[in-house]
């Protein structure tokens, strides 16, 4: 058995590969469903219904997709430059914390100034957090995978400390949570009486902006070259460290924005269960999208469907909603196989 590089990728294959990967993941996830002695079709039917079956379901899915687009973009931007930012979860929380710090009454300004302020502050917090591992990698050769992962735990503890301490809501009946975000800083709802908020629009705009940046701009040109071959990029005269820092800052900022959206758009205050692992799911989203920023939007929708739908299914027939995590993790692995199929042709000898 041998893998032979393809000279060109047929369009049909480029589309069929991710679709096949998702189909295979769903097929594999049927095994635990059979074990749970439920009808596979019924379970998947319920997932579909729960995520897309009603107006309310669709708004829930869109709300869930919003942070996933941001964290997916954060991973896509960084991975493209081979900067392994696995710290989107921490950056998300720090972004949320920063948004809560300025958005709960510490600063009083009208809406048109307040919303940009929380966005900028949140993005900045995420960016600065990512700056630490990026600089450590560049200056001291410290592997960023481990540092970003470990910083997730540090940040979570820091957030816990803040919302049990200085930022604790005195009206929160003892629960560890921040004070509520003031109305001026709250992202408007897109549909009344649902949870979809303006963050979704921002996320989609961010996706388009990242795509344009990657494919058309000088920054994207540099980032792609540095990611694909740091040695050749350096030889050609590219400022490799500067490119890495820029990529790290953008990636961290995107993850920070995910946190802002959750605090200022969805929850209204900061808690420790703000994110059920959006930072990690973002990696799956980015890989499903093959690091393409526009495809990230679609992939985030898919992952959101699985999560929202699995919650519904879980309530309906009592199968644990961890099934959603299973489907998502499996689809990451099957997508890796699919990426192999688009790059190589399998030859048997």
């Amino acid at each position, binding site marked *: 058995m041998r893998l032979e590089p393809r000279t060109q990728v047929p369009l049909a294959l480029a589309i069929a590969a991710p679709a096949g990967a998702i189909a295979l993941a769903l097929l594999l996830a049927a095994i*635990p469903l059979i074990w749970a002695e439920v009808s596979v079709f019924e379970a998947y039917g319920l997932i579909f219904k729960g995520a897309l079956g009603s107006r309310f379901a669709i708004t829930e899915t869109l709300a869930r997709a919003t942070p996933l687009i941001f964290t997916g973009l954060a991973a896509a931007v960084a991975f493209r430059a081979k900067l392994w930012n696995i710290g989107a979860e921490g950056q998300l929380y720090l972004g949320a914390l920063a948004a809560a710090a300025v958005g709960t009454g510490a600063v009083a300004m009208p809406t048109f100034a307040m919303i940009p302020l929380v966005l900028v502050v949140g993005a900045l917090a995420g960016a600065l957090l990512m700056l630490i591992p990026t600089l450590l990698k560049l200056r001291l050769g410290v592997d960023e995978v481990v540092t970003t992962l470990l910083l997730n735990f540090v940040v979570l503890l820091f957030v816990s400390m803040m919302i049990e301490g200085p930022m604790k809501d005195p009206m929160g009946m003892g629960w560890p949570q921040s004070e509520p975000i003031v109305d001026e800083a709250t992202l408007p709802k897109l549909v009344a009486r649902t949870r979809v908020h303006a963050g979704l629009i921002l996320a989609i705009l961010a996706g388009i902006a990242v795509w344009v940046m990657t494919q058309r701009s000088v920054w994207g040109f540099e980032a792609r070259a540095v990611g694909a071959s740091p040695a050749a990029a350096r030889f050609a005269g590219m400022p490799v460290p500067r490119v890495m820092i820029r990529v790290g800052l953008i990636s961290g900022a995107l993850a920070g924005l995910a946190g802002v959206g959750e605090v200022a758009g969805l929850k209204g205050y900061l808690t420790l269960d703000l994110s059920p692992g959006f930072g*990690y799911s973002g990696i799956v989203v980015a890989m499903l999208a093959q690091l393409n920023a526009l495809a990230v939007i679609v992939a985030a929708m898919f992952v959101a469907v699985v999560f929202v739908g699995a919650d519904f299914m879980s309530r309906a027939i009592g199968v644990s909603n961890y099934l959603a995590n299973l489907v998502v993790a499996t689809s990451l692995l099957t997508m890796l196989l699919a990426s*192999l199929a688009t790059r190589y042709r399998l030859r048997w000898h």
Partner: protein
Amino acid sequence: MEIIEILLTVSFWAAATRIATPLIFGTLGELICERAGVLNLGIEGIMTAGAMAGWMAVYQGADLWTGVLFAFAVGMIFGLVHGIFTVPLGLSQHVTGLGLTLLATSLAYFTYRMILPDVPSPPRIEPFQPFAIPYLSAIPFIGPAFFKQTALTYLAFVSVVVVGLVLYKTPLGLALRAVGENPAAAEAQGIDVYVMRVGAVMVGSGFMAIGGAFVTMSAFNAFFFEMIAGRGWICIALVVFASWRPGKALLGALLFGAFDAFQVRLQQALGGDIPYQIFLMLPYVFSILALIVMSRRAAYPKALMVPYRKGER
């Protein structure tokens, strides 16, 4: 000084050893994988799966050692997946490993919920009990600190020695180091690089799973969600800290255990003035600092993270 007193108590070092044990297994496991040239970021998930699998086997009626063996087997299976993806298929070791962590973790949680759909509090098992090693435990201070532990801790000590001997004193160890340094050189000498690498990842993953099992079967007696809490990632840092050497891995894990135990005691000693989260942060910060100190002179296995394709040079 209070701090010195803490360091001089037997119970402190006994606790440090207890904390270190899963890290010894995890670090050894990761070390074996990386020595063969494969980064295994599945470690966090594999430890979680090992913790659940070992515990669950015992809860279902198996004896403790069967539980450990079962955890080892589960780890090997995840290792096989990682090995196939990253070695013959040459896929990204980073992404595969993270995917495996997500898969193993969710599979563990899902399985736990499947078997125990609604339990009010986590059920318990009868865990490994500490026992004293004759003679060794009689050594003043050292004895009661390190040799009145559970069987898994002793297994960890023995594993360090065995892995060290295998790596440096056997043809197998030489072959393993060679595939991690220069796979083409190994293949030119008739060694099957794929078999060596996949095999190393499987065995290494088995060790990781036992590290997880220690947490539920020896340190505690129940399985909780998120109980591995980044231990896997700390092991990855410890491998760098240990410069890919088993003896130093033991030292690093014990040092980390001591630090963690110290942090807990410091927290008790200093009381409520400082938020407890600060103390909990310390081990993670310590790991990052250790990485910073060691990364400069780290002598990586040269082929680490470099996929090898036969006949493609």
